[in-house]
């Protein structure tokens, strides 16, 4: 393995998932961070945040993305541009011949997702969207599933909730009226959580089964946070779906507050088989620790990040880890390192842009169903 053989360009910086991805690439000996960049007309706040991440890693900030992409030292673009302008940036990076490490979900619109897939194919570059499928527990689940220990798969039930944010402020007397297509996805204080969190179980189920989603019934709601409600984005979503082989799948996702779970939140999937069921639970096996130390308390609310989306803002308000549950599991390589493994061996990743686009389509079908109250059949019309 040669050190620093992959030059990584960070497209969009602070207060995005780039903070995590940049740290993961920086920790991998195969990488050298080349710089941070973005579109030249980004607003002042975004430019400051981009420069902040560049300073943190001691690398230059290129205010012109084309200038940065022209740099022959760049092999991989790690793209965390906000959803509304993500597609055009991904396409630009693909056309520049750079491999693509992509924030999730891929893009908010179907046409954009299709255009990304076409551009990636045309450019012949490798791509990977961040997901949980590279986690050890996911690998173990797939291995067990593929050894057919559960018999014939009969149903899948998945729950994923992030225990962050201060709950209890949403007005429950104001029912959510979903709109289709969804226009706003990621705001300063809130994200669409069906989109943001739902992408994980959707990609996981597709990866585990190899089957596409066929029908989608969805509901979105505002149960926990006024921040989401004020911005007209949901903090909760559920999907009741079938796969192309008729397999029923139910999914519940959301952000439900710091104190709703002893650890980071429920992250569990039940694969119901004809012989037995496989329960994949990130919080099991675990040790539990109780003592006379001061109980964990909610951190202060960061004014720029009340939902605790980002690493830097959580550090600023000194979020303490919850210590009572200690999950037991093997140490894991980062998702970014798994992408580099793919590049090393010249193979496609397991979640390239084409697969990521399928998840976008399921999510859009969920929003359409939530808006109309009807079951939506995939593929969506082009």
């Amino acid at each position, binding site marked *: 393995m040669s050190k620093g053989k992959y030059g990584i360009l960070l497209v969009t910086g602070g207060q995005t998932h780039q903070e995590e991805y940049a740290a993961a690439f920086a920790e991998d000996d195969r990488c050298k961070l080349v710089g941070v960049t973005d579109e030249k007309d980004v607003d002042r706040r975004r430019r400051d945040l981009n420069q902040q991440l560049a300073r943190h890693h001691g690398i230059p900030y290129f205010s012109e993305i084309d200038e940065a992409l022209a740099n022959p030292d760049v092999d991989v673009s790690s793209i965390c541009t906000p959803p509304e302008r993500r597609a055009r940036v991904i396409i630009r990076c693909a056309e520049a011949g750079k491999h693509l490490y992509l924030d999730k979900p891929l893009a908010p619109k179907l046409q954009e997702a299709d255009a990304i897939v076409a551009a990636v194919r045309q450019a012949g570059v490798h791509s990977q969207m961040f997901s949980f499928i590279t986690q050890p527990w996911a690998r173990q689940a797939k291995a067990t599933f593929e050894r057919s220990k559960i018999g*014939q798969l*009969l*149903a899948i*039930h998945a*729950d994923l*909730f992030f225990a962050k944010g201060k*709950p*209890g402020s*949403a007005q*429950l*007397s104001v*029912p*959510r009226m979903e709109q289709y297509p969804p226009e706003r996805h990621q705001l300063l204080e809130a994200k669409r959580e069906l989109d943001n969190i739902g992408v994980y179980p959707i990609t996981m189920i597709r990866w585990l089964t190899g089957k596409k989603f066929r*029908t989608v*019934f969805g*509901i979105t*709601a505002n*149960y*926990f946070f006024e921040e989401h409600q004020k911005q007209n984005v949901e903090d*909760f979503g*559920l999907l*009741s779906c*079938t796969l192309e*082989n*008729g*397999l*029923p799948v*139910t999914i*519940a996702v*959301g952000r*439900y*507050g710091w*104190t*709703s*779970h002893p650890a980071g939140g*429920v992250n569990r999937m*039940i694969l*119901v088989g*004809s012989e*037995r*069921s496989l329960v994949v639970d990130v919080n099991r096996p675990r040790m539990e620790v109780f003592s006379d130390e001061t109980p964990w308390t909610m951190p202060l609310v960061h004014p720029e990040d009340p939902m605790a989306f980002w690493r830097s803002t959580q550090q600023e308000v000194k979020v303490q880890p919850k210590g009572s549950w200690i999950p037991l599991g093997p140490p894991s390589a980062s998702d970014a390192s798994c992408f580099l493994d793919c590049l090393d061996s010249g193979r496609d990743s397991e979640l390239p842009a084409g697969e990521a686009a399928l998840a976008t389509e399921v999510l859009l079908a969920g929003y359409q169903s939530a808006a109309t*109250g*009807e*079951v939506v059949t995939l593929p969506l019309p082009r």
Partner: protein
Amino acid sequence: MVIHSQIDRAIRSVLASQRVGQPVFVRCIIQGSGTGHEVEKTLARVTGLISAWLNQQLQRIYALRASQGDGASLALQFRDGATALVSYRHEPRRGDDLDLMILGNHGAIYHEASSSVMCDEVNPFFSGQEHSAVEVTLILDAIQRSFRSGRPESILAELRP
């Protein structure tokens, strides 16, 4: 030995204490040995119970049958915005049990299958607390209509929460 009626009592007690705030979502996965119509009846009765926990009138049901075997899942919508996912998985060898997650707007209640052992009394879930036979019949009717139509179906009469 913990039985379903004890779980019901515990949930009602926690909800009444307001510790988790107003309940807004229930995820319930029932594990049992029922088949055919028994599964539908169990789903209908548990749906009635969930309606009582949420203290909201059931409005719509979207029902999905397992591709094979005796499993089924319901997505439930309640009049004041609460929702639920209720699934039945056929596990003849492991006995009756259930997974529960009840989300309130200030907290959550969890109960995991295998952390309880059920007694085998008849309908232990509903001892003394169940909905009327008429209400269960109305829920069952909506479940069966949704199975047939492949669409969400409304409850055809007012149900008390």
